[in-house]
C-alpha cells in the first residue's frame, strides 16, 4: 500500500541546466503512472529522483505522507527495473533474485519461498538454475522484475524496460507487466518514449516535453482531449495532422481549402471569429466521401487500414488512415472529409474548448 506525492519538484544540475520544472502529481495506491515524452524531456530524471539516484533540487517527495526527499535510495522501499536488466552475469537466476534479500540478511528459507513465488508469477521456475546469458531478452527482463517483486517494495519503478526487446517480445512483455500490475496491485511508475506502451499500460499518463509536464490524464483523456499541440502530436500514431486556418463566417479557411463546421464546433470557436487558429485532425478521423480534394502521393496498406498521404489546397500535407484496403496511385485525387476536429490557439498552442477566451 503506497501513495506517492511529488510536489513542485525541480531538477537543476550543477551546470545550471534545468531538466525538470515544477513536477506535481499525486499517485494513488495501486496506480500505474506512465511518464511519456521524447528523449531528453526529463522523464528518466524524474524517475531517478523518485528512486533516490538523483538529488531533488527543489520540492518535496512524500511516500505515504512521509517526506523522503533527502532519504537515501536504500531507505525508500522502492525497486527499480532498468532498461539493460542489470543482472549479475556470474550468478544463476535464483541467486540474482535472492541477492538483495541475502544482503538484508533475511532468513534463507523465507528468501527461498519468496523467490519461488516470484518465479511462479513470472513463469521462470524452470529457468532458476540458468545464468542470465542463457536466457532471452524478455526472460532477462522478467528476472529483473522478479528481483523487484521478491523485495515486496512499496513502489515499482520501470525505466524503459522494454526498449532492448524486439517488437514481438516487447508486446508480450508489455502484456506481462500489465498482468503483473493487476496481480500485485502495486503502485508503479513507468518511463517510456513509446506512446503505445503508455496508452496500453497506464492508469494515468504524464506527458512531458523539455522538462515541463504538458498534461496528466487517463490515456483516453490524452488521446481525446489533448491540452495542446504537443500532446496532440505526440499521442497517436500516425500523429495528428495540423493545419493553419482562420475561423470566419462559420467555417475554417485554410490555404486553398475550406472546412465546414457543426453548430457545436462553431460555438466552441465563438470567441475566435476572424482569428487564426490551428486545426488538428487525427488520421483516423478522416474518411472518404467528404468535400476536400486530396491529391495522393503515397498509399500504405497495413491490412486492416490504409495510410493515404497526400496534399490538399495549396500543397498542404495530410495523412489519412482509411478503413480497409485501398489502392490509390500516385497522382490520384480522392475526396475526404474530417469527422472529429481539435482546435488549438495559434499563439499559446493550447486547446480551445467551449467558453475559452
Amino acid at each position, binding site marked *: 500500500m503506497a501513495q506517492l506525492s511529488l510536489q513542485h519538484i525541480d531538477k537543476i544540475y550543477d551546470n545550471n541546466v534545468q531538466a525538470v520544472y515544477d513536477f506535481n502529481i499525486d499517485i494513488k495506491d495501486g496506480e500505474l503512472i506512465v511518464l511519456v515524452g521524447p528523449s531528453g524531456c526529463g522523464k528518466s530524471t524524474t524517475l531517478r529522483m523518485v528512486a533516490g539516484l538523483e538529488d531533488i533540487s527543489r520540492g518535496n517527495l512524500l511516500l505515504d505522507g512521509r517526506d523522503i526527499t533527502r532519504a537515501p535510495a536504500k531507505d525508500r522501499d522502492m525497486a527499480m527495473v532498468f532498461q539493460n536488466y542489470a543482472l549479475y552475469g556470474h550468478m544463476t537466476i535464483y*541467486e540474482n533474485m535472492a541477492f538483495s534479500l541475502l544482503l538484508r540478511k533475511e532468513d534463507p528459507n523465507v528468501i527461498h*519461498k519468496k523467490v519461488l513465488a516470484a518465479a511462479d508469477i513470472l513463469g521462470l521456475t524452470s529457468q532458476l538454475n540458468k545464468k542470465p546469458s542463457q536466457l532471452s531478452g524478455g526472460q532477462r527482463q522478467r528476472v529483473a522484475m522478479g528481483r523487484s517483486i521478491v523485495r515486496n517494495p512499496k513502489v515499482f519503478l520501470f525505466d524503459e524496460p522494454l526498449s532492448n526487446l524486439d517488437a514481438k517480445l516487447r508486446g508480450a512483455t508489455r502484456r506481462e507487466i500489465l498482468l503483473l500490475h493487476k496481480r500485485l496491485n502495486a503502485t508503479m511508475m513507468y518511463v517510456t518514449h513509446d506512446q503505445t506502451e503508455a496508452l496500453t499500460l497506464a492508469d494515468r499518463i504524464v506527458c512531458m516535453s523539455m522538462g515541463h509536464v504538458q498534461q496528466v490524464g487517463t490515456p483516453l483523456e490524452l488521446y481525446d482531449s489533448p491540452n495542446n499541440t504537443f500532446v496532440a502530436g505526440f499521442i497517436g500514431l500516425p500523429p495528428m495532422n495540423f493545419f493553419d486556418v482562420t475561423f470566419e463566417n462559420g467555417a475554417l479557411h485554410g490555404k486553398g481549402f475550406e472546412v465546414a463546421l457543426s453548430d457545436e464546433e462553431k460555438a466552441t470557436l465563438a470567441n475566435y471569429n476572424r482569428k487564426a487558429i490551428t486545426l488538428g485532425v487525427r488520421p483516423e478521423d478522416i474518411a472518404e466521401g467528404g468535400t476536400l480534394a486530396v491529391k495522393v502521393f503515397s498509399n500504405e496498406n497495413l491490412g486492416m487500414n490504409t495510410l493515404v498521404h497526400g496534399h490538399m489546397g495549396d500543397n498542404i500535407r495530410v495523412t489519412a488512415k482509411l478503413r480497409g484496403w485501398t489502392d490509390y496511385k500516385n497522382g490520384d485525387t480522392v475526396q475526404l472529409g474530417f469527422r472529429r476536429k481539435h482546435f488549438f490557439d495559434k499563439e499559446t498552442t493550447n486547446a480551445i474548448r467551449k467558453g475559452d477566451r
Partner: protein
Amino acid sequence: MMNDQSVRLDRMRFTKNTTSSRLVLLAIVLDALYFVSLYRINLDYYYNMMMGASILYNLVFMLAAFLASEGVKNYKQSFSGVLCVLGVIQIARIFILPVPAHQTTVTVGGVELLAMSNGQFTRAVIYLVGSAACLFVAAVINFTKSRALQAHIAGLEGQKA
C-alpha cells in the same frame, strides 16, 4: 505447505554446496603451506629425487582437489570418494617426508642437527592433518547433502507423476 526442513532441502535445488567446496579450497591452502614449509629443511636433505616427485604430486593434488571442489559444489556424490582418497594420501604424506626428516640428523658446521626441527615437524603435521580433515569433512557433508537432495528430487518427481 512445506515445513522448514523440506524448504531447506528444496533450497539445495538452486543453491551450491559452498560448505564442502570451501573446505576443499581450505585443504588446498593448507597443502600449499605444508609445501612451502618444506623448503626450510636444513641443508640438502630435501634436494634429491623426492623433490621432483613432491612437486609433481602437489600439482596433481591441487588440480584434483580443485576439480573436486567444483564437483561437490554441484552435489556430485562421486566426488566424495575422490576427496576421501586425497585425504588418505595427505595423511600418508606425513610418513613419506616429515617423519623420516624429523628422525634424520645432519651436520652443519660441525654441529649435528635434526634435518627437520621439532617446530617445523609439528607445523608440517598440522598442515597435512588439517588438509586431510578438511577433505574428509567436505566429503561427508557432500555425501549427506547429495543423498538428501536426490531423495528430495525423487519425492518431487513422484508427486508430479
